[in-house]
């Protein structure tokens, strides 16, 4: 699951019955990306979102230069110190600088968000294409499998996968990615189904194009729009989900500065050092907010009918 149902997540009925995240209405060919960009530029929310993302990305990339301290360097005699000039966000239970850890945490969270969504999108798109285009038993098998995956609450499934494969960042990405596969597979499948019978596909088929060619040069590019929208929002969900796994002790392993794991540690010192809890959480929220705002904007831009 992506943590944000109905918005970033489309569950069994949402993709089909409730207002779909994006429609597959024919889009005039003359509307290139430029049009969408223009709309995006005029969307205040999207710009705020993009700015937040940019700031977080820059901070993450610049972390090694910007961080005043080594994120894993411990100064045991300076543990649990309140925010000060030396330690902007205070120190944690091992005397590490929370500010530096938050900066470095961005590197992990952004990476996890992007990689797991990429994993989910690619796998989902492939399964969806296969399912929608091949039809028959292949479609049945894939669709049923996706339904089985969707029958589990997402966090539970992700926990199970990580518990099975052992805690760690790689398995977190794998779990968060896999759990989101059905969402993308369904979007892609729906796209393929509506595109399959369209004129330009029929035309290509009449001209003797191979299945492969039709699939990858005609259907895939046209069915991609909803996936792009979904995956932008998906990054937001994936970041929260990965942080949740980190919070449960299943994500990045110590001493890595991961936001969710920092929250677990901080929880033990809530009474003595609330700052160690406040800042990593704020960082998650700001980043996720950025992706949600931007994702909304992308959706509105790519699909003007949805804009309200």
């Amino acid at each position, binding site marked *: 699951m992506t943590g944000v149902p109905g918005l970033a997540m489309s569950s069994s009925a949402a993709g089909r019955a409730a207002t779909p995240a994006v429609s597959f209405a024919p889009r005039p060919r003359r509307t290139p990306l430029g049009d969408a960009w223009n709309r995006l530029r005029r969307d205040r929310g999207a710009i705020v979102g993009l700015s937040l993302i940019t700031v977080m990305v820059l901070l993450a990339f610049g972390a090694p230069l910007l961080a005043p301290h080594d994120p894993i360097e411990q100064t045991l*005699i300076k543990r649990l110190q309140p925010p000060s000039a030396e330690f902007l966000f205070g120190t944690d239970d091992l005397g590490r600088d929370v500010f530096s850890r938050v900066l470095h945490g961005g590197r992990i969270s952004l990476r996890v968000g992007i990689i797991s969504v990429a994993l989910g999108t690619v796998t989902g798109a492939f399964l969806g294409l296969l399912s929608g285009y091949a039809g028959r038993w292949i479609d049945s098998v894939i669709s049923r499998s996706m339904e089985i995956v969707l029958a589990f609450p997402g966090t539970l499934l992700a926990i199970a996968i990580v518990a099975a494969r052992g805690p760690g960042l790689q398995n977190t990405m794998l779990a968060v990615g896999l759990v989101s596969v059905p969402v993308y597979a369904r979007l892609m499948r729906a796209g393929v189904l509506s595109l399959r019978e369209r004129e330009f596909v029929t035309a290509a088929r009449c001209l003797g194009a191979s299945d492969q060619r039709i699939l990858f040069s005609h259907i895939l590019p046209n069915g991609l729009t909803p996936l792009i929208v979904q995956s932008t929002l998906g990054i937001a969900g994936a970041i929260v989900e990965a942080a949740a796994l980190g919070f449960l002790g299943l994500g990045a*392993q110590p*001493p890595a500065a991961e936001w969710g794991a920092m929250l677990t*540690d901080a929880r*033990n*010192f809530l*009474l*003595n050092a609330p700052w160690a809890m406040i800042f990593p959480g704020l960082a998650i929220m700001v980043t996720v907010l950025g992706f949600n705002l931007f994702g909304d904007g992308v959706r509105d831009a790519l699909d003007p009918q949805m804009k309200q």
Partner: protein
Amino acid sequence: MKRRQSLGLGTAALLAAQLANRIPVAFARGEGGTFVFGTAGDPVKLDPAVVTDGQSFKTCDQVYDTLIAFDGSTTELKPALARSWDVSADGLTYTMKLRQGVRFHDGTAFDAMAVKWNFDRWSDDKNPNHVGGDFEYYTDVAGWPDVIKSVDVVDDYTVKFSLKIPQGPFLLNMALPSFVIISPASFELDRENAFKNPVGTGPFKFVEWVPGDKVVLEKFANYWGEEASVDQVIIRTIPDNAARFLALKAGSIDMMDGVNTDDAVAARKDRSLSVLVRPPLNIAYLNFNQNEKPFNDVRVRQAVAYAINRPGIVEALYKGFGKVATQMIPDNLLGYNSELKGYSYNVEQAKKLLAEAGYPNGISTEFWYMPVSRPYFPNPKQFAEAFAADLGKAGIKVELKSKDWGAYLADARVPKFPIWMLGWTGDNGDTDNFLFTFFGSVGSGNTWKNDDARKLLAKAQASVDMTERDTLYQQVNAMIEKEVPRLPIAHTNVPLVARAYVKGYLPHPTGSEHFNMVWLDK
């Protein structure tokens, strides 16, 4: 010959600890009220014969009695359901006189038959009552299948134990929390569900167990011993240490264990709270896989010992609730070797030893830490990070890893880990319970190849001469210091925090609890 064994912890030290904790020993007690004790987890089962976890014992200790009990805060023995006992000269026959007029909570009488019934249940796997789980304390901790030949009823209130071989700590083992006498009548009534309807002779009767929430007990008015002061005891499950402390501060519980060290420090400054400390009977240590490189080389293990700033870490993370361990047993146990100096914090020495061992550029390896909090390592991850930082400075680059508790223990036994954290809490205050458990046999995480040490440990186990045992254990401790098969880190003074009005509680080193002593001064 009547012999009361006195092993383990010195009374004077404990008395001092109590005074330091400002526990009034016997003043006018307040009566009545509900005492709520917060702890980290539910009991596993309320059938003490088949459990090994402290949470189960915490409840069972209130509902049941042993034949012989630990006295106060010590591991010295005092009569309980057994009034007195005699030992034959060859150490093979123990005759116990039982207390008369004792009744189980179900109204049936406690007598010699009940004692025999319980021992038969534990020992005989063909007995229809030998159900409910694994009788681990009987088979493994006390090792009684190889010791006890038979248990016979002499008369209604006399039981005779016939032994195959003498066992030094036989009476001490009788006081283990597993060996309580449960009501045969109630157990046979519903064997399947006996584990959740405990019926014993203890100061409290079982009322209910709401899984994940609480166990409720009420005072048993006809208790043979010191009648409970409070009317009701509730043992509340609050899994998170910080949340539990919060509940204590808010007054929704009266006392708690599993206190984060920082919270215990804060509690010391809070006049509405009092901090109590269990006398240490535990050890936190690092274990090495000595079958493989690099830790097969004693110099590398010594390098680890020099590299870790144990005083610094113990100071910062135990905050006065623990002290640096230099040997694998607490210093008040038999066989502690006061000649030994231990390893000091010396990064240069560590680097030098590494270089001598053929690792001038240091080593990199995996370091495994426990996924769960134990009394000896209250916050393993935090410790692991501190160890990793110190090791790194000496050129030992470690990657911290952990896995679920079951898998962790499994891999530690093989061992699949090069270096890992673990610890031990003593059962009965005997050195054998520490050193033989660690090094008595090869396997189960012991990769120390030292036959001499093993022979000495076996000899000490069989001996009943305390002076001889003392010498033998001192020799073994010297060997351990030299070869560092495991690196002792700390002995924890496990803190408990209570509201200031909670009086009469005696923290016991083994972790057993007796809430009938508790009264509320409010």
